[in-house]
């Protein structure tokens, strides 16, 4: 089984003082960290439950420097992990013990935009929001808009194939990248994609986007820029039940309208958001839908009127239309603050990220409620309702004996319920460390084995972000599966070491 090809633990090298010295010479001394206290800053991403202190952190500033660090790792069989802003929510940038973290934070150059061709080349450490800021004067923007956009980097967006509230209409990162320069795990530098939107041969750019730093490090990215829509209309509609709000969403879709965004918040989520940012959501409603329509003014107007009618037909008790850009921003501020706002109503919480076919919403909400009451915990819900991406927030108190374990179990059970409903364990946060053990719920052994073949082609010795995406016996406490020969082994081209 090619899994063996990427299992390098037994041959991993170590970061010696000489090696750190070599890297200091290759980069500059101040851009190599080995001091324990400073290393601790890199021990986790936004999933703080997983922590591993790396042996060294490097801050390359050019593609060549990234290749140099990766080259040393390849030579010495030292595992490495690329890192952007560390806002990942699946432990994707979790360091490997004794390994190296390659931080792209110092690679923040933005080349001048090509306005007529609507594209721009940036380095991986540039934040998502800074891309749009750099081209705002040309009425252009970068469409993927994760809630973390002020902080998270384009490199991280590529690794996670990030999306945001507006991906229902505009798609994810993979739909907005033309070309990338990559450093492969053997330290070679390649380009995928290019000026042309079609390439001769397999779409490697597409294969790398969403691969969570396990296939390559992106060091230069040419993104697609969209023209800002002529008109944007936003409203919040209150509903007496989440099921009715769900019906309204189905009605909108059935009417042939593709809104820019459809978000749903339940009562608990609204309570938290209001406590945090006072965005003007009604506190006495079971569910609120945020619907945004954008596009040419005439089209927008027609669709927006229709959406309001549909909401009313579905039993909406109150509709509030944003009168101007300021009110619209406030509505979004409330929605985007949802995760952070949970701190207002619960000392601790787990953020879940599952996807269901949208039509299963009512059923899933009911099941989730049952599961929560069995666990004796509360669950707040914010969803990207248009595409069925749920973000249940499992609230708990770590100080209460056993609650964090119950919370974690409930959160995992919810993700796996999504798979049972024909959905996915993750819509945007990635598998990383956190969900590797749930992958077998969604994919068969053969599915995973074939994915590992791709991994082995990019990274035959498994040094690039090992331990992520794929379940390992150590992480998941499984018994190793039955022995299977890899086709290359059978043909005598490789040997097991």
């Amino acid at each position, binding site marked *: 089984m090619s899994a063996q090809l990427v299992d390098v633990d037994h041959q991993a090298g170590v970061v010696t003082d000489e090696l750190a010295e070599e890297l200091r010479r290759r980069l500059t001394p101040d851009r190599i960290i080995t001091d324990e206290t400073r290393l601790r800053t890199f021990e986790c991403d936004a999933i703080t439950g997983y922590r591993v202190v790396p042996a060294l952190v490097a801050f390359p500033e050019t593609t060549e420097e990234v290749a140099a660090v990766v080259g040393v790792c390849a030579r010495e069989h030292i595992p490495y992990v690329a890192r952007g802003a560390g806002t990942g929510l699946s432990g994707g940038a979790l360091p490997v013990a004794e390994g190296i973290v390659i931080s792209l934070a110092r690679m923040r150059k933005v080349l001048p935009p090509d306005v007529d061709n609507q594209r721009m080349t940036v380095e991986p450490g540039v934040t998502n929001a800074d891309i749009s800021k750099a081209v705002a004067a040309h009425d252009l923007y970068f469409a993927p808009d994760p809630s973390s956009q002020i902080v998270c980097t384009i490199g991280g967006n590529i690794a996670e194939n990030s999306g945001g509230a507006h991906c229902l209409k505009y798609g994810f990162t993979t739909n907005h990248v033309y070309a990338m320069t990559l450093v492969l795990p053997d330290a070679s530098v390649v380009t995928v994609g290019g000026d042309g*939107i*079609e390439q001769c041969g*397999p779409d490697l750019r597409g294969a790398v986007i969403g691969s969570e730093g396990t296939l390559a490090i992106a060091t230069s990215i040419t993104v697609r820029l969209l023209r800002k829509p*002529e008109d944007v209309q936003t409203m919040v509609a209150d509903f007496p039940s989440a099921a009715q709000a769900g019906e309204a969403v189905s009605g909108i879709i059935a009417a042939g309208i593709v809104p820019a965004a459809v978000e749903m918040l339940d009562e608990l989520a609204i309570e938290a958001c209001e406590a945090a940012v006072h965005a003007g959501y009604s506190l006495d409603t079971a569910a609120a839908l945020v619907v945004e329509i954008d596009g040419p003014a*005439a089209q927008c107007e027609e669709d927006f009127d229709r959406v309001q009618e549909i909401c009313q037909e579905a039993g909406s008790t109150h509709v509030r239309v944003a009168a101007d850009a300021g009110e619209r921003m406030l509505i979004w501020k409330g929605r985007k603050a949802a995760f952070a706002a949970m701190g207002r109503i619960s000392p601790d919480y787990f953020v879940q990220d599952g996807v269901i076919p949208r039509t299963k919403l009512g059923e899933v909400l009911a099941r989730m409620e049952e599961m929560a009451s069995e666990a004796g915990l509360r669950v707040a819900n914010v969803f990207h309702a248009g*595409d069925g991406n749920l973000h249940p927030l499992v609230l708990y108190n770590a100080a209460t004996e056993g609650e964090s374990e119950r919370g974690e179990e409930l959160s995992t059970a919810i993700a796996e319920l999504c798979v049972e409903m024909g959905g996915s364990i993750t819509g945007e946060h990635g598998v990383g460390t956190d969900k590797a053990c749930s992958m077998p719920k969604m*994919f068969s052994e053969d599915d995973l084995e074939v994915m590992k073949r791709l991994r082995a082609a990019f990274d035959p010795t498994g040094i690039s972000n090992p331990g992520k995406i794929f379940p390992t016996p150590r992480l998941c406490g499984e018994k190793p599966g039955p022995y299977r020969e890899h*086709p290359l082994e059978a043909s005598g081209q490789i040997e097991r070491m």
Partner: protein
Amino acid sequence: MSEVTTQQRTPAVSAGREKRPSSTSEAAELLRATQGSVLLRGGATKLDWAGRVDEPDLLIDTSDLAGVLTHNPADMTASVGGGTRLTELQRHLKGDGQWLALDPPTAETGATVAGLLAAGDSGPSRLRYGGIRDLVIGVTLILADGTVARAGGHVIKNVAGYDLAKLVHGSLGSLAMIAEVVVRLHPRPSGALTITGTADADQATAAAVAIAAGPFEPSAVEWISQSGSGTLLVKTEGAAGYLDSSRSQLTSMLDGLGVTTRQLSDEDAETSWQEHAAAVRGEEQETVVRICTLPTRLGGLTSDALDIAAAADVEARLISSVSLGMHTVRIRGGDAQGHATAFTELRERALAQGASVLLRSRSFEVDELVDALGPPPSTVELLKRIKTQFDPAGRFAPQRFHPWY
């Protein structure tokens, strides 16, 4: 004008070597039970794209791996057998006011969903909806050793695991057999407006830039070269109110660029788009090249193509998705040597300017005179390793990407 026939595009295989499995498991079993080279055939519209595969030991026809497996109108997703013809899928979806938002020129002639994904083919509407790479949300693949693997799923938003659908996009049957495809659907637009006009390459480019900067959501900005000038076709879709306001705005914008416009009735528009698709498909004995570049390079590419063609005593005709920078160049007239020279020089010039180039159809005589793939990309070693991982025995489409992998 005679269109290219399937007979010409399908290589010779002796009787008994052609198989038509009727399920994923049957296809997997077939691959498990056999050895030797394999050519996968959907509708055979694009079997000769890239390197030509001669006389495979086994030809797998996907026509029985066909049919709509699931369609969830409310979730706007569907799954189909890979051998399903796009036209059949569209017919199935029409009743619910939906479609798979693809309009490849080969649809009419029977292109299959898996064949489209494997070829990475797209039509004018890619401008609005993205290409097939953007619309496929899940795949079931069968590897050369019979391993069946799924990636993606049935929901639009999903980042679990590697996106293997992207890997087979453009692979032209060289990595794995695509047995099933899950797609995201769109509502059929309630109305459409097509405006046409006479424009040269520079005017067409200016039009595309102006349209992109304006308050439109264009579904197509296409240009067909004619000697000295060309025809511009602009399409936008939506509600009546939007189409009304776009009609006058687009017309006056194009007039301002010196393009004399004509608005087409729905019927005439339909005919124009059919003619456009036929123009992209080309005619027998032509050498057809796909070139993708920066949208604003249209003028340069056109004059390069015309100059190079004239020097080689052949004719060149371009059909361009202007805003996408996607061009089909048809080399015609003259002799095989002229085709080969014009193609090779045009590719060299285009690659030097950062474009990507794929040789599509051509005659066997031209094949003898050209290097179908050209200089290898920077990823060539990686591609070799992927091929070795997915198909270690080198069974699928052996010559397709030769000598790259």
